[in-house]
């Protein structure tokens, strides 16, 4: 079965992310810096597997693999990992791999274990319109960027806590400096807002074929997420929201953005239920 095969690949990717996380965790517990190349290799292998899974899923369903919450989450963690693999070696931020692998493994495991999230979607969903698919995938990609922003914000909060409370053992000395983390968070926020703006622009030019109500809910929620992040960017720009308050807000907004995917999915499902014949056809493959 095509779906089962892609799930095996998703499992493979997730297991590799988990192995990477456990390996890094073991080193962190022993207050040792793990060799970056080892973790990058493990996560790189997981990423290749997850990419193959997403490709396989998209190919078999003849659409972008963004048809259900499971696929949302997998695509989002894939985006976060892609960004880490690009950003991590360039900026050499220690422990970013540890946190990224933790997020990818955690979200990946939950999404795989809750089987009902991975319900069959209709073939050729989104009407096969490349613009709609670009809109959806870039929107989810921006969520991946915001995911990495939430991670750097969490790292900032931990380092800040350690410095304020005079903690200097364990993982604290291994984390990047608060200044580096803050600068990285700023860059990620700008990147995320830019990608989401682009996505909304593309979305505005298309007609996804969904009912008016589903479209309205999706548009409303996505715009709200965009507006919230844009406001965060503005407040940071004018130095009204900085330091720990900025970091907490980044994490909170990411959780809200993540939660907003479910109402979008529900409304879309209600507006365009999967025809039973199509479901039967999928199951028989």
């Amino acid at each position, binding site marked *: 079965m095509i779906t089962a095969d892609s799930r095996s690949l998703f499992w493979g990717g997730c297991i590799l992310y988990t192995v990477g996380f456990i390996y890094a965790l073991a080193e962190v517990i022993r207050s040792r810096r793990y060799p970056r190349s080892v973790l990058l290799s493990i996560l790189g292998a997981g990423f290749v597997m997850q990419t193959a899974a997403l490709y396989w899923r998209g190919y078999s369903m003849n659409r972008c693999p963004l048809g259900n919450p499971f696929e949302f989450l997998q695509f989002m963690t894939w985006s976060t990992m892609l960004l880490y693999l690009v950003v991590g070696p360039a900026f050499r931020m220690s422990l970013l791999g540890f946190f990224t692998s933790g997020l990818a493994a955690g979200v990946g495991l939950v999404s795989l274990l809750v089987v009902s999230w991975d319900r069959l979607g209709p073939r050729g969903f989104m009407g096969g319109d490349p613009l709609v698919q670009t809109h959806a995938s870039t929107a989810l990609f921006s969520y991946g960027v915001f995911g990495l922003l939430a991670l750097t914000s969490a790292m900032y909060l931990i380092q800040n806590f350690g*410095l*304020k409370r005079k903690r*200097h053992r364990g993982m604290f000395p291994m984390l990047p*400096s608060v200044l580096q983390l803050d600068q990285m968070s700023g860059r990620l926020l700008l990147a995320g807002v830019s990608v989401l703006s682009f996505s909304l622009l593309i979305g505005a030019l298309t007609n996804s074929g969904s009912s008016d109500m589903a479209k309205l809910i999706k548009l409303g929620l996505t715009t709200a997420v965009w507006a919230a992040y844009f406001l965060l960017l503005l407040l940071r720009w004018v*130095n009204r929201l900085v330091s720990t308050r900025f970091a907490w807000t980044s994490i909170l907004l990411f959780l809200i953005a993540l939660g907003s995917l479910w109402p979008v999915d529900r409304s879309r499902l209600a507006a365009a239920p999967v025809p039973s014949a199509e479901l039967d056809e999928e199951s028989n493959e």
Partner: protein
Amino acid sequence: MSDRRKALVLLGSSHRTAPLEWREGLAVEGPRLAVLYRELHALDGVAECLVLNTCNRLEIYGVGFGDRLSRLIAGAFCRFQNVDPESLERFGYRKMGEQAVAHIFAVSAGLDSQMIGETEILGQVKDSYRFAVDQKTVGRFLHRVFQKGFQAAKWARSSTAIGRGQVSIGNVAVDLAARIFGDLRRSRVLVVGSGEVGRKTVKALVSRGVKVISVTNRTAAAAKQLADEIGGVAIPYDGWQGSLSEFDIAICSTAAPQTLLDRETVAGAIRMRLRRPLFLIDLAVPRDIDAEVAEVPNVFLYGLDDLAAIVEENRCARESELVRCRKVLQDRAAAVWRRLDLIIPCPDNSGLKG
């Protein structure tokens, strides 16, 4: 020679066995060191030798044959340096074979240093080894012992906590600054006052690449003197608080009886710093900075007690690793000594003099 058994002997004296004033008489400086090497190597029965000469120790490693080897080396050194042999016996130590190997392993790893786990000693051992190689007094035996010693030191540094955490106030402050700013080369430092600990702290920062340093003091001449010493500039004392926002790190170590920085002043400075954090180091007693300043977001305040507590904790952590580290190095030394047993040339074709 009556006895042709191989021997590795170590004769030495260090801060652990001798007072400073006596150790001063042992130091062999400059060109005399080469002369000492020549004299030791010329001794009948000495095949290889190496002198480790640091501010805290003088050790002579000799390889040769015969049970009189150590007495031979000690006599030659005492004559060369005009040292009373009885004093050397009293303030020195002598180790043979495996124990000598274990000793150089421990020394290289910093286990025998005044500041346990310090790394400077490894560089000094390497320098001594290189010098001895240049003097052509190192053969297969000492080469192997010292190379294994460097590996042992590397192992101790990377696999144990013996060198983890700084054990001086200045270096602890530097580590904290790195946790706040990362690369310190672009950090701007303000030094208020000229206390001794503050002076050492700013020197530690300079050693990590800090280039922009301003010094202020109630006495302009004192500020100028310190600025010249550390490569900074002196700025007027009056109103220095107003320029606080221009600096990343401020080190206060004045003798002022009241606090010089309060929460409002620091909060005002941080607002002007465009998201850049501020690291305040208060080394003064009584304190120069109001404790409430620590509550200002993006400001990190560390006092003398905070830094001293970290130093003490790190020192205790290093000491707790000492026993385990010594045990492993002893085992490694035993293994190396067993191997040396196999590779040592036979007395008849060893190439030894005499």
